[in-house]
């Protein structure tokens, strides 16, 4: 069988694994809501964690095979960004779990991964191939990989911020969140702890994003003869950087901590997603690497 096809099959397998994990994580959260005194480590969460790990292994194999099939690093078009970005998100989740109890993030992270892989396979997919001269540079290895890793880290941070906001709303008695469905929130850490987790991840994401920006500018100087040219992708990368910078400032500004700071994360992450999808597909610019026929 051709290596490229094998890679695609493994992506399907990883997506299926994550789907099972998603269901198991959701069941676990529902159970937590029913029985808050029970210590963690039930059957559902065990299944969820092992299928996530299986998924991440299949996912990693599919990325490696994709690179072999294309004869280059496997992150040069939208399909491959989706593949690697979602992999990083799941990997960051699993790595964080090694140091801290964050299994409550599992449902959101695997959910996003399933969504991303589904979109990738059905909408963004193109066959593995070489790349145009503008992409033939070692900066493809550096700039794009770090950008993708940053997106993965920011995804997990986003999940933490969403839970922080939901939990905070439920705790303060928001009527929209008092239904049975949201009882799982009672089992989560306090909004303050969730905020601290989100901040750690966002700080890592921000540093990686800063690096992406600088590496991109160096590469643009090599390839296009200017380090900055307000290309749509550059504009949005800059906008995202400014939003996350605002988030970091908000955290230290009286009256803007907690919920308000978390809103910056929501806006920032929405822009990350838009930068990746909308900017590639809607605008014409030099970063038109979706590989999809326009």
């Amino acid at each position, binding site marked *: 069988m051709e290596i490229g096809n094998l890679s695609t099959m493994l992506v399907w397998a990883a997506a299926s694994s994550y789907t099972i994990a998603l269901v198991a994580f959701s069941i676990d959260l529902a159970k937590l809501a029913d029985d808050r005194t029970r210590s963690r480590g039930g059957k559902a969460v065990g299944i969820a964690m092992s299928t996530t790990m299986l998924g991440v292994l299949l996912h990693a194999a599919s990325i490696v095979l994709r690179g072999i099939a294309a004869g280059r690093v496997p992150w040069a078009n939208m399909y491959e960004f989706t593949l690697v970005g979602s992999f990083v998100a799941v990997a960051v989740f699993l790595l964080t779990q090694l140091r*801290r109890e964050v299994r409550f993030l599992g449902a959101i992270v695997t959910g996003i991964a399933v969504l991303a892989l589904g979109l990738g396979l059905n909408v963004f997919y193109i066959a593995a*191939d*070489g790349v*145009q*001269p*503008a992409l*033939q*540079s070692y*900066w493809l290895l550096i700039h794009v990989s770090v950008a993708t890793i940053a997106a993965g880290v920011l995804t997990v941070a986003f999940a933490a911020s969403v839970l922080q906001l939901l939990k905070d709303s439920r705790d303060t008695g928001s009527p929209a969140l008092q239904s049975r469905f949201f009882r799982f929130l009672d089992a989560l850490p306090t909004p*303050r*702890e969730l*905020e*601290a987790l989100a*901040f750690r991840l966002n*700080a890592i994401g*921000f*540093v990686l994003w*800063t*690096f992406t920006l*600088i590496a991109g*500018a*160096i590469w643009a*100087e*090599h*390839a*296009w*003869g*200017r*380090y*900055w*040219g*307000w*290309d*749509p992708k550059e*504009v*949005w990368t*800059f*906008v995202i950087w*400014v*939003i996350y*910078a*605002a988030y*970091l*400032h*908000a955290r*230290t*500004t009286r*009256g*803007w901590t907690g919920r308000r700071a978390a809103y910056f994360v929501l806006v920032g992450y929405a822009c990350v997603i838009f930068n990746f999808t909308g*900017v590639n597909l809607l*605008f014409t*610019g030099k970063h038109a690497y979706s590989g999809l026929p326009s």
Partner: protein
Amino acid sequence: MSAPAEPVAVPQLGLRGWLRWVWRQLTSMRTALLLLMLLAVAAVPGSVLPQRAQSPERVAQYLRENPATGRWLDRFSFFDVYSAPWFAAIYLLLFISLVGCIIPRIGVHARAVRAAPPRVPRRFDRFPVHEELTVDADPEEVVAAAARALRGPWSVLPRFRVAIATGADSTRTVAAERGYLRETGNLLFHVALVGLLISVAAGQFFSYRGQAIVVEGRGFANAVVDYDTFQPGTAFQPASLVPFSLTLDSFAARFTAAGQPRDFQADVTVREPGRAERAGTIRVNEPLLVGGAKVYLQGNGYAPNVEVRDAAGQLAFSGPVPFLPQDSVYTSRGVIKVPDVSTGPQLGFVGFLLPTAVVDASGARSVFPQPLSPLLVLTVFTGDLGLDSGVPQNVYQLDSSRMTQLTAADGKPVTLFIEPGQTVQLPDGKGSVTFTTLPRYVALDLRRDPALPWILAFALSALAGVTVSLFTPRRRLWVRAQRADGRTVVAAAALARGDDFGLGAEVERVLAAIRGIGSEESSASTPTATA
């Protein structure tokens, strides 16, 4: 006499007071936050609307299609967002706010760095992390061990700043603080951003860039007149152009079977005054360095070599004509202007070069970017090219307002199909056209920006600063050792700025060192952080 209408209850703020108030507002974190949000929002329209700096032709098209809204948008610089006054106002205010915020903090931090760690608090039990234990070693040893563990292995850059003191009842105490680098990094980040802005501005001032089209076998000299387009910086001096010339020896392009580009390479010969002639290559990601400037390969295409003879049979035009590629299979558009005819009206040709031509019922088109079966498809105009009017003309466009298109007997425009080596006669003995060879051309972009090393240095400093600032924990730690009943009671407490997951482990590490007194070997291998 003061004006009687002045309200009595309001205290006179005065100009100085008012300025101070404005300054305080501007340099507040709240304002910085607001300006950051504004900056993010203000940058967006530039990605949605076409911008003159990137694609003037798309701006012109937008203005044609939306004349009413376009005019208003243009009035507010929405097609030049990043050089618009309102955009500049936002980032300049942001930088003023930043400077106003940072300068006092530099002073505060300089004092803090030299200050001793905060004194040992009276009570430890109000701290989030505090512990107590009893050991056999005497207080002096305890304090020394704690200080050693806190300072860490590097005396140049100790982990903690440590102050040992004696309190009441001859209690020995250790006060320690770490995390000064956090603010250092923070300040470095912000100062580097200011440096970045200044170097970018300086680059705009001193840089220049020019574009030139060079056909295979031909040359190019680094002089303003030799460029097709040239954009000097504000302070550009023509004398600062390094006198060099280069010749394009050959250009190679590689494509996949599906016509996807895979490799472009220009082989050139560079001549610099006072130096031996040298060979160089330019590729898309590998610009050529010549005398402080970089030469980039920005585009390529075909420049068919054409000879045109007029009605008298005289050679009226001979040379390569660059045709601009319109799509991925290099369907290239071009214009041939023949003003120097010995007799009769001037000639103009408009048409396409098809590198791999397929001609069928639907017409002629190119199917592959390489020149496998090239074909020139031209229509012919005669009349006045309008070149003598003195108004500069676009070489890629034919002004046909004073020209007539040649038509055949059936009234359809005459279309010439010419293969390399072929000569085609124009109707009515108006002359002939010969397509001799098909060299390629490259579009070169030459650029020099003396600020680049500065921009890179400041950008990397900002990155280093923000990394150090975000990941350096700020902790204070105290140890108190007191003799009681022949043994030593040791108490430790720690406090962190913000959320700090490693605080407990840090205290544990120090206590482990104290427990390990007398068994140096084991103290070194004691697992310290278990949390």
